[in-house]
């Protein structure tokens, strides 16, 4: 798990108030929604808000790609990194 993945995992735990859950409990490739961790659509909205605040990025809620980005911690980290790189250029 890289540093950004670890940071995002902790953000998920803090934002969604997951008591007794540690970063180690959420592997980067575990699905966050449905059968995986078990998050739902309200969690997705909450998480999108937290990511936008923390990383100063934009997430279009109607984007077809959004669902893909939110699949796992790894895909979220890749998305955040890409957004940051785009801003840096």
């Amino acid at each position, binding site marked *: 798990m890289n540093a950004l993945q670890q940071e995002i995992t902790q953000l998920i735990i803090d934002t*969604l*108030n*997951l*008591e*007794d*859950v540690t970063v180690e409990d959420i592997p980067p490739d575990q699905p966050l929604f449905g059968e995986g*961790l*078990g998050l739902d659509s*309200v*969690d997705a*909205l*909450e998480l999108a*808000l937290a990511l936008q605040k923390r990383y100063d990025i934009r997430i279009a809620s109607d984007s077809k790609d959004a669902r893909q980005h939110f699949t796992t911690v790894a895909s979220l980290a890749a998305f955040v990194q890409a957004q940051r790189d785009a801003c840096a250029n």
Partner: protein
Amino acid sequence: MMDFHIEQWRAWAPGLDSDDAWQAWATHPIIVPEGDAQPSCDFLSAMQRRRLSRLARMTLHVAWPLCGEDEQLPLVFASRHGETPRTFALLSEAADGQPLSPTQFGLSVHNAIAGQWSILRGQRGESVAIAGEADTFEHAMVEAAALLSEGAPAVLVVIAEERPPAAYDDWIDDVPFSYALALRVRGSDMADHAQAGERWQLRLENGRDHSADRTWPHALDFVQALYRRKDTLEHPWKTRRWIWQRVP
């Protein structure tokens, strides 16, 4: 006149979480320190607890053991002030021009806790969420009496109040500390005499409230009466005089 058979009850307040603690409080009632204590609700998984506010935890904590595993029970959830900390947090975010938390916004209705109870306990029957004045407790009992008269074998009544943020101090003066009380009630009939629990009658009379000083919130006063085996309680509010009478 309403007749109730209170089969079981359970109360919680910060530091008051056992019969012994409540018994001691009933003997010498004090304003207990608020702190940030809340029931753990560890009968639920972390995923199930993630959206439970403090008031929701208090409600679930007192109500949980009063409903059987496979039982369907109508619920009356009563709170005069509701979740003031959540309301205040949302208003503060709005005032600062910040986006509102979707989770907090989604739960910012008076029946949110009744809904969470329904989901977590698989309750598919009726539930009522009410807010009244200082006699919200008695109005909750009126709701329970209505459900019982419609044929419900038993009703779960929860009254829960949370100490509001300091910003509300000028307006809210009847929540000395956070508390929740759950009662499992049935209608009273002759067959009940042999059964455990307590029988009480509640009636409403017209009157003027002349008492200058407020005592304890009605629900807490009732808890005190339960523990101290009092027989009669009078709860005046404005033009209403609620009279509780224990039936021997």
